[in-house]
């Protein structure tokens, strides 16, 4: 079963929930679990484990075209076909160049060129690493190269690291509702939306709910930091018939363990119990399929 943990608003506790589910499923439920950190711009799930890197680091690449000035006739067809304005051709100056930071590797320019002047070569967009977090699970993360705009491609590549022997795969999604989030949830069987009961949390949750309804993904909501803010979140969930999977209470002591990186070492009983309820509800969705 593939479960994506997403939010809309940043800082609601996606990684907190993803990491706890991963840890509790591995240790208490004896499930074979893999956590894939899809927040490739700032992967941080590994910080919660005393994890050792296992296996080699892979470099993920994209194909970048380059233009051979000896073959190029400066006809500008490739530049016109490029949807991303990544190709600059200035005929009088005999100038033709690809800007790798704008290129999305779509291959249109190769099709456009009638003179065989364009060839592709791989260029790194980020690194993929596997970790042993010490709980029998596997933790995989991708880290985007600074300046690269290819988050979505890198997310696609890190998801290819999913292992066949895993019963549960958890995707920790990036915040927001744009392409990287769509890519993360694309092949998930179920999406857990983590939110906080504040006006900001509600505003962004509404956007994410609209997105998931549009792409037809089943989802439920976990309210983190319950007890803060107001009750409008609860009203929204019941009006829209959205399942509340569980609530993680806001506890200052828990927040301070989190800040010390010791969140998983001392999970308070009531919080562990709440995660147990969430796990039972979510796993039941998988078996019902």
């Amino acid at each position, binding site marked *: 079963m593939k479960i994506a943990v997403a939010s809309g608003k940043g800082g609601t506790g996606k990684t907190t929930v993803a990491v706890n589910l991963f840890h509790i499923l591995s240790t208490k439920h004896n499930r074979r679990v893999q956590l894939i950190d899809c927040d490739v711009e700032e992967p941080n799930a590994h910080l919660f484990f005393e994890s050792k890197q296992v296996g080699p680091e892979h470099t993920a690449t994209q194909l970048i075209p380059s233009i051979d000035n000896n073959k190029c006739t400066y006809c500008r067809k490739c530049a016109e076909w490029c949807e*991303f*304005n*990544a190709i*600059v*051709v*200035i005929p*009088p*100056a005999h*100038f033709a160049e690809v*800007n790798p*930071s*704008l290129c999305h590797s779509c291959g249109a320019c190769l099709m456009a060129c009638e003179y065989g002047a364009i060839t592709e070569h791989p260029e790194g967009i980020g690194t993929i690493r596997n970790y042993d977090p010490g709980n029998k699970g596997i933790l995989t993360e991708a880290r985007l190269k600074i300046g690269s*705009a290819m988050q979505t491609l890198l997310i696609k590549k890190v998801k290819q690291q999913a292992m066949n022997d895993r019963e549960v795969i958890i995707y920790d999604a990036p915040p927001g509702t744009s392409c990287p989030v769509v890519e993360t949830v694309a092949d998930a069987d179920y999406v857990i939306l983590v939110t906080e009961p504040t006006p900001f949390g509600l505003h962004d949750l509404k956007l994410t709910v609209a997105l998931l309804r549009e792409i037809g993904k089943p989802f439920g909501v976990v309210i983190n930091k319950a007890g803060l803010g107001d009750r409008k979140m609860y009203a929204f969930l019941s009006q829209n018939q959205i399942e509340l999977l569980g609530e993680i209470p806001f506890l200052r002591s828990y927040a301070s363990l989190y800040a010390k990186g010791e969140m998983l070492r001392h999970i308070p009983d009531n919080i562990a119990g709440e995660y147990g309820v969430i796990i039972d509800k979510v796993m039941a969705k998988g078996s019902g399929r």
Partner: protein
Amino acid sequence: MKTVITSTGNNAKSNFDLRFGRAAWFCVLDEETKKSTFYRNEQADATGGAGVKAAEKMVELGVSKVVSGDFGPKAKDLLEKFNIQMVIIQDDRITVKEIISRITKSK
């Protein structure tokens, strides 16, 4: 010598546009004849690469100087490659006409 001034509208009474790649119009001033011509920036609403395309346009128009509010790194690289001087003015309350008169008076 030709100079481009980024403009929010299609005539000299328009306000100066602080944006380069996303400027609404480009005013091309011929400093010898003092004639100015306005070109609409076709790439003003591009999802990406507007600055590069604007820089490409400058090379095509054969200008040697561009006056705008700022230049992004990709546009800057290309303008530098073609020895086009970048002049920054950070005041969007002045009109294109005022900039033209500053340029022509300093001659």
